[in-house]
């Protein structure tokens, strides 16, 4: 009889002591949880993209909960819905998120450019750029090995026919692709701006014309066409000042190479949650 009473009693006693210690620890060593922060964090999409300027969603939530000058509309992937939810939690007026999209400044599809070499190295843009600026004839355009595709958490950018293409429906404007691109030809622009220049070549017009039949030749017709002083040829290619651009599309009509392009009007996007 006694043979099993002692071990059971010992186990129960140990369990009681442990339970007591744990409850004491929970009381005195508790980490204060900011409920506001937790609530905000639950609203954020969780992509940890860094578009808000903070080191991930947790950091942004913490900064918001602490108060101060942090804006509630910084979460680009979350868009208006998340901004409204955060504003509601914090008891502030909701501000619209300026929706952003990625935009590739290149139109060098495989059929308009020529390869300069038979590249057999690692299939990443960063590696290919290290060898004579990439295997293509144009040294400023998209290399097309898809570093951006691998970086995108939303599957919104894909390389097809040698050129990265953004799916504006899926893109939330987090900027991961723009930070990864070794050619620095991906811009993050407000979604409302629909006119863009699909070329970044700094070569002179005649050289560009030889290397890529779709490149900007710096003819300045767009400059003359623009009524708002928004388009200028800088570094041998047209650049649109997005603050001045009114989406009129006159430059796109004037462009002889059709390198200035226009997107159709954007529609409201659903919030995408990751993970």
């Amino acid at each position, binding site marked *: 009889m006694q043979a099993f009473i002692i071990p059971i009693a010992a186990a129960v006693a140990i369990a009681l002591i442990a339970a007591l210690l744990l409850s004491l620890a929970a009381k005195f060593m508790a980490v204060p949880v900011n409920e506001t922060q937790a609530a905000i964090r639950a609203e954020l999409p969780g992509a940890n993209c860094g578009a808000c300027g903070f080191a991930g969603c947790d950091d942004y939530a913490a900064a918001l909960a602490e108060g101060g000058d942090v804006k509630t509309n910084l979460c680009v992937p979350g868009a208006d819905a998340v901004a409204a939810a955060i504003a509601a939690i914090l008891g502030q007026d909701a501000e619209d998120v300026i929706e952003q999209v990625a935009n590739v400044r290149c139109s060098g599809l495989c059929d308009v450019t020529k390869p*300069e*070499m*038979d590249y*057999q*190295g*690692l299939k*990443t843009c*960063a*590696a290919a750029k*290290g*060898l*004579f*600026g990439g295997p293509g004839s144009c040294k400023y355009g998209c290399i097309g090995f898809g570093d951006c595709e691998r970086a995108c958490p939303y599957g919104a950018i894909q390389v097809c026919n040698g050129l990265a293409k953004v799916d504006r429906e899926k893109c939330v404007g987090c900027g991961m692709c723009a930070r990864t691109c070794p050619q620095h030809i991906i811009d993050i622009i407000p979604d409302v701006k629909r006119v863009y220049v699909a070329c970044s070549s700094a070569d002179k017009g005649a050289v560009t014309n030889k290397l890529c039949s779709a490149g900007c030749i710096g003819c300045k017709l767009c400059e003359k066409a623009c009524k708002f002083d928004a388009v200028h040829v800088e570094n041998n290619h047209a650049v649109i000042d997005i603050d001045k651009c009114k989406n009129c599309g006159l430059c796109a009509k004037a462009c002889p190479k059709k390198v200035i392009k226009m997107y159709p009007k954007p529609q409201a996007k659903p919030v995408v949650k990751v993970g």
Partner: protein
Amino acid sequence: MGLSRHLKGVHVKHSKNTAGMPIIPMPVPERVYIPMVQHIGAPCTPVVKVGDTVKVGQLIGNSDQRISAPVHSSVSGTVEAITQGMTQYGRVDTSVVIKSDGKQELLDTVLPPEINSLEDFVKAVRNSGIVGLGGAGFPMSGKVNIKPGEVDVLVINGAECEPYITVDHAVMLSYTQDIIDGIRAVMKWLEIPQCHIGIESNKPDAIARFNELLAGDPAIKVHTLRQIYPQGAERVIIYETTGRIVSYGMIPWNVGCIVMNVTSVMKLQHFLRTGLPMVSRCMTVDGNVVLHPQNVDVPIGTPISDVLEFCGLKEEPKKILLGGPMMGRAVPRDDFAIVKANNAILCFNEAFAQQRKETACINCGRCVAGCPMGLMPAKISRAFKDKDIEALKELNVLYCMDCGSCSYSCPARKQLNFEIKQAKALVMEAKK
């Protein structure tokens, strides 16, 4: 004996088709395109203008930075243009284009330098424009700029472990006495008591020549090195000849060594004797599409296409390598100019140059067995794919010297060396 004293490496096929061939001077090209960056260090700025008449040996580019080497005209003629364009290093640099008048007139001021002290010697080396001719192109003036007594061993690199290349071998046979005189000059002015010459055992004639001409000089010792790649790498040859270990973050100075290539020493001796700076370089032209593989002496700035025309081609090359097949760089076009550090042009056809298809790593460990630096390339490759910078640092990725032994020994044909290069760039970027 206990532990092996030798470093690891790989046994590569030698293919030294041009062994024993003399060095043939190339005819003067119509135009030379002399890049202002032909070395590791600060770029030079042109000191001539378009329309200037220049002569052989005339200074055309200089820099006042410590690590740099002046550039001289390799032909006599007129400066046609100063252009910005892509050089063989894949960067956009300034080049001076000189149209040759075919006379090859020497500059009147080309006279042997007067050397009375160490400062004079360092200045003379600087003026000679000589860089490390084994392939790296480190300015020699940077190497010899030391205080006497800091360095006690001069290592002369005659290993030439890369396949195909035989130009150092040819130099060792043709200019043995010049090399020895050059070594003695360096030893005298830098007050270095001893010298080790390292030559791979596949060049017995060169070893015999040195032994014969040195006639038992106790200060200069000729070492017969095993035939293994990369025997001619700086760290490897220091270890194999002196037993000293240049560990990570150290340079040969730290262990009291200076390493010089045999051709560099030969060029230095020529400069000390004649005063003619580095205006041409000898190189091997080989590969399975070259009609007459040979060693040629090429004026600096000659386009690759001119050299290939001189040697003849059986068919259009699919791959052109500058340097050896292990560490050389492939170039996409044949209009790049030859620079001081090029020691070979190799041309191959498509069947020969085709990269074999990559398969999965089978963890055989041959890359580890082949790495002379004792790294683990397969692990580095995995850490690189995960972009794990901490792991890469722990694996000492920066210690890699890009010899390519790992890629060569991999049965899965993984491009390990390429991945390690990218991994090094990643770690360097994270350090900033």
